[in-house]
């Protein structure tokens, strides 16, 4: 690949200031939120419009150069790690909110708009429910690529439940409109599989999001327990009772300690688990549900309950939870986050197995998780300065996701497969399952220029479409026959 030639071409298509090639400038983009992986791209481009994205992608297509699209780079699976000799297309300059239509319940945004900006733009009457912990910086384009979740997804659903339509630049540089503000479009639901495709099918340049009215009220409490099992049982009892909280989050002893040091939320340090429950909805419903939740916590041996008396106290509870990852820096020089999902009823069994593994490896594992939907975030703590510890941590993390899959769960609930978990894909999917993924990939990107080397465990070519649709030139000429 002639990088020099591409650079000149991009500078002509965009502007010289928005094409980066100096090693110092490129280094900024070598990793995403998972610092384990670092690759220097050949070039970084910063398009500002869908036309510029098309032009860049088209140029790459003609030159046969692979590319990776990236938003704010907060991903935790290495999904936005560049490819060597490839182009990194950074979409953070496309940050306009294009349309707000609250009577019809949708907004239209460019991919670089941050998650929090969407809700801010439609407050106080409406909000956009998916709320990844990185919501202040992470971009909607990245959320679409990863099908991002967050604490409130148990009740409200994930990014995929809120994307109505997309304009997508396909890897050949063409632009297609999939779905739209209307809820039903004839034909295949291609928005469905595009969301969560981790940048391997194209680049969304215009995103139609469904937004909903803010619930009448929200009430939040934290209950403290001696053991994780008690907290887990309380969650199961709440769900079995038919109450659907907006969010349920559990933190273990180590996580509580870390967040307490970081935020000073006032959590006791001598407890084994903290359970955050948030009920939202109509005031009359929350009254009923609230009494039930409190009774269930007490029945399961809650040592104490802290109820947020106002919005400031509610925000403090959430601040403690959402800073859990960052706060781990206070306990350990480095950590590795897992994202496995289990059926909620397997929680005690899986936590026990994680504890056993941690003991065997002599590594500390902190646990923070979205308890309602069984999404675990074990944080494997390690010191990169100690030889072999990083490798040990990674091996342990790998065993933890295997435990999750064996329990009937998933490799990842919201962080994505990316670069980091692709080697585990065969643990969850068979050969034919992976083939089916590849079929979709090849329909969108037969040359596999979009984010190559991610998601799928082994690289494979697409090949020609078999069948009678494409007549071979020799057949047309009457020279050869098909058998």
């Amino acid at each position, binding site marked *: 690949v002639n990088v020099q030639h591409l650079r000149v071409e991009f500078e002509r298509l965009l502007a010289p200031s928005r094409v980066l090639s100096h090693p110092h400038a490129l280094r900024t983009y070598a990793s995403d939120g998972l610092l384990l992986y670092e690759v220097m791209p050949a070039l970084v481009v910063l398009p500002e419009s869908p036309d510029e994205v098309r032009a860049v992608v088209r140029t790459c297509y003609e030159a046969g150069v692979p590319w990776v699209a990236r938003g704010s780079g907060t991903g935790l699976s290495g999904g936005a790690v560049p490819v060597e000799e490839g182009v990194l297309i950074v979409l953070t300059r496309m940050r306009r909110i294009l349309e707000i239509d609250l009577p019809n319940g949708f907004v239209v945004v460019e991919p670089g708009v941050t998650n929090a900006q969407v809700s801010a733009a439609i407050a106080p009457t409406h909000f956009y429910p998916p709320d990844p912990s990185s919501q202040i910086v992470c971009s909607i384009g990245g959320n679409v690529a990863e099908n991002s979740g967050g604490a409130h997804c148990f009740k409200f659903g994930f990014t995929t439940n809120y994307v109505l339509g997309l304009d997508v630049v396909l890897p050949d540089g063409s632009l297609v409109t999939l779905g739209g503000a209307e809820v039903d479009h*004839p034909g295949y*639901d291609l928005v469905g599989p595009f969301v969560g495709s981790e940048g391997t099918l194209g680049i969304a340049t215009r995103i139609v999001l469904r937004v909903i009215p803010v619930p009448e009220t929200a009430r939040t409490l934290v209950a403290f327990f001696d053991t994780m099992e008690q907290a887990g049982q309380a969650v199961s009892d709440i769900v079995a009772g038919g109450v659907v909280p907006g969010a349920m989050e559990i933190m273990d002893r180590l996580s509580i300690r870390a967040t307490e040091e970081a935020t000073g939320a006032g959590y006791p340090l001598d407890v084994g688990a903290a359970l955050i429950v948030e009920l939202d909805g109509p005031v009359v419903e929350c009254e009923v549900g609230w009494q039930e939740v409190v009774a269930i916590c007490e029945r399961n041996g809650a040592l104490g309950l802290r109820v947020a008396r106002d919005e400031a106290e509610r925000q403090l509870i959430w601040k403690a939870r959402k800073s859990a990852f960052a706060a781990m820096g206070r306990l350990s020089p480095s950590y590795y986050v897992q994202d496995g999902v289990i059926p909620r009823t397997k929680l005690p069994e899986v936590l026990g197995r994680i504890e056993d593994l941690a003991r065997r490896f002599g590594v500390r594992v902190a646990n923070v998780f979205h308890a309602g939907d069984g999404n675990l975030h074990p944080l494997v703590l390690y010191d990169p300065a100690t030889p072999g510890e990083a490798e040990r941590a990674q091996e342990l993390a790998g065993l933890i996701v295997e435990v999750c899959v064996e329990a*009937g769960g998933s490799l990842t609930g919201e962080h994505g497969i990316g670069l980091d978990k692709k080697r585990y894909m065969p643990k969850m999917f068979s050969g034919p399952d992976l083939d089916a993924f590849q079929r979709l990939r090849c329909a969108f990107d037969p040359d596999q220029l979009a984010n190559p080397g991610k998601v799928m465990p082994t690289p494979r070519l697409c090949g020609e479409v078999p069948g009678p649709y494409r007549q071979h030139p020799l057949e047309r000429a009457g020279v050869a026959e098909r058998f």
Partner: protein
Amino acid sequence: MPVEARPTHASVAGLLRAAAADGRSVRVRAGGTKSGWGHPVAEPALELSTAGLDDIVEHNAGDLTAVVQAGVRLADAQADFGRAGQMVALDPPLGADDGATIGGIVATADSGPLRHGYGGVRDQVLGMTVALADGSVTRSGGKVIKNVAGYDLPKLFAGSFGTLGVILEVTLRLHPVPVRRATVVADSDDPQCMELASLALSASPVRPVSLDFAWERGAGMVLARYAGAAAADQAGTGLRAVEEAGLSGRIDEDDDALWARQRAAQRAADGIVLKVSALPAELSRVIRVAHAMGASAVGRAGLGLSWLVLPSREAAAGVAAVEEVRAALAPRPVVVLDGPGSVREKLDVWGSPDAGALALMRRVKQRFDPLAICNRGIFVGGI
């Protein structure tokens, strides 16, 4: 054509593999309640019935999930889940003898009033096992509520009308059955007032689980159903919103019959059923178009989805009526569901999707079913 009484995943896959060997087309069918939908096509070489795949494989009450085979009737599944106080949030019309199966509902993405509060088929399906045209059996998605491993193929298969493979098994997300329900009903003969009322209900912080409208011969109503321990209190809030929009309403706590009628009115043995996907703030426009055409209408006011039932007309007259509705509501998608063959054969029942999107859909079809053996020709663009 012989139908296998107890098909298995392997036998379905085997049949597809055999059909693919010589390019024979296969029609997939279960309850047969929607077999008239889609483009009319020539009689296929083979018919494959999934009706015998009728096991509820797992009901994990504690996890609010279930794995069901494609031939399980929705009514039977709901009865089973109901014993644990749970339900799958799908309530499309069930067709003759409540014959609609999970596989058929998922393949057509048919829906009912619960869609307002719970989402559509795509939002209930967590995972799927599908036999592809080459005879491979593939699983995608998972058995847990939250999962982003691999492409979300269940959403691709949902609503694909069996043109990408045969759905064998579906993993569903379940929800608790609400303890109480109550419905605000407001009558009106003014489409504009109905639109204002439904927009107010839709924007209210007290969210209904269903928000519907109905219109017939100049008389209409808006219905908002609330669910929960304090459903009637919630409905009180809805009633005030309706009254502020200038309608008078009442609260009905024994509301099952009302909603059964809404569901049933999405189908017609006689007449032409059009599904219109517009915007919520276009409700009055949709009603006026229906009224002008002598059609009745029901639908999801909060989602902009309507089912118009045009009086039965044959051939050219029916085609002209459909085209008139399409022209009046353009660019909103208008799909013909039920209708006489003489009409369906003379028009594109799907309408024309975005050209770029259609080209991409064709490429998807080619990768999954290159010989077009699965439900050949019934889908958009003749896919």
